[in-house]
């Protein structure tokens, strides 16, 4: 993670990480409407990240930075979503949530791999295209897991 922080602009990355990790100053509502809304927000942010993977290779520079930033927005939206879950949902879905957490960590490792490849001499444009491929497919799988878990946990049910 340190590598990623140093390579993707410490300021932007750090602020994104803080956004993702600092809990809101007050407890988020756990109403069905709040759950549906926060789930929708995660789905939207994942879609935006996938859209970004299609446009990022067109940027002369900074394509990976934009993807990294959007990845942090997904993390932030997911943290906010988890904060809307009721205690019973958190308890029953603890394994699912741990897997979703781990999934995001693993997907994020692709950024570290991308930087290592460039440091190892891989063409930045080729490396970025590869990163985009892996990200869009991985986020698709992750979103499917999120939707399945949300269904099991009755997220947003009245």
């Amino acid at each position: 993670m340190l590598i990623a922080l140093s390579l993707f602009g410490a300021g932007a990355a750090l602020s994104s990480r803080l956004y993702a990790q600092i809990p809101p100053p007050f407890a988020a509502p756990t109403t069905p409407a709040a759950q549906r809304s926060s789930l929708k927000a995660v789905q939207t942010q994942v879609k935006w990240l996938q859209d970004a993977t299609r446009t990022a290779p067109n940027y002369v520079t900074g394509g990976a930075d934009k993807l990294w930033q959007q990845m942090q927005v997904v993390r932030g939206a997911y943290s906010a979503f988890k904060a809307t879950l009721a205690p019973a949902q958190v308890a029953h879905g603890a394994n699912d949530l741990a897997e979703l957490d781990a999934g995001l960590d693993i997907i994020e490792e692709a950024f570290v791999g991308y930087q290592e490849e460039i440091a190892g001499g891989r063409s930045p444009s080729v490396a970025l295209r590869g990163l985009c491929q892996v990200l869009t497919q991985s986020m698709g799988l992750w979103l499917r897991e999120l939707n399945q878990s949300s269904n099991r946990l009755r997220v947003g049910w009245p």
Partner: protein
Amino acid sequence: MPLHKLTIPLVAVLAAALAGCATKESTGHAPKPANGIVEYYQITTGAIKAVRAALDSLQRVSGYTNDVPSGVRSAFTKEVERLEVGSLQVRARSQAILARGDAYFENWQDNLARMEDPRVRQLASEHRPQLESSFGRIRSASQRARESFQPFLSGLRKLRTALEISPNAMAAESGKELARITADRGRPVEQELAAIREELKTVRAMLTPANPASKH
């Protein structure tokens, strides 16, 4: 008959049986319990295939002592990407199992205890010690697979870069050595994933009632 032709219908039958089992609380708003065995079996099988395909592609690349043809190189590049994506779910599950440890097993048991089919609940209760032992073996294999996977993927990426920079990278001793070391790192990943899958078969057998439940 090849094993995969036997296992796919088995998985399908069990999936259908479990899907047919609504939950004890399914008419209410409580979270649905998840057995998770069928899904875990499927994602492990998918990851084994991805690792096997990457190893096969690596072996094809290693067979060249001069220029590696562009088709072989691009196929190798694709397999490395497929491995990254195709292993995501099993890596995430392994990481969750390792991070949560006993709590993961307890949560899984809690879910089993809430399955609608009383026979599954009974079997889960009766076989708890065996299930715990199986879980312990899955956890150990997950740990070993995880330790081997990262160096394996890293080696594949390095070789991919080397081949992109120079199609005759395999002519150099360093290229051959990288390919050999990477293959050595990949085989344990495949073996540990296979061990997890075998354990899941055992678990599945323990939790499968003698006669499939009729649909509720």
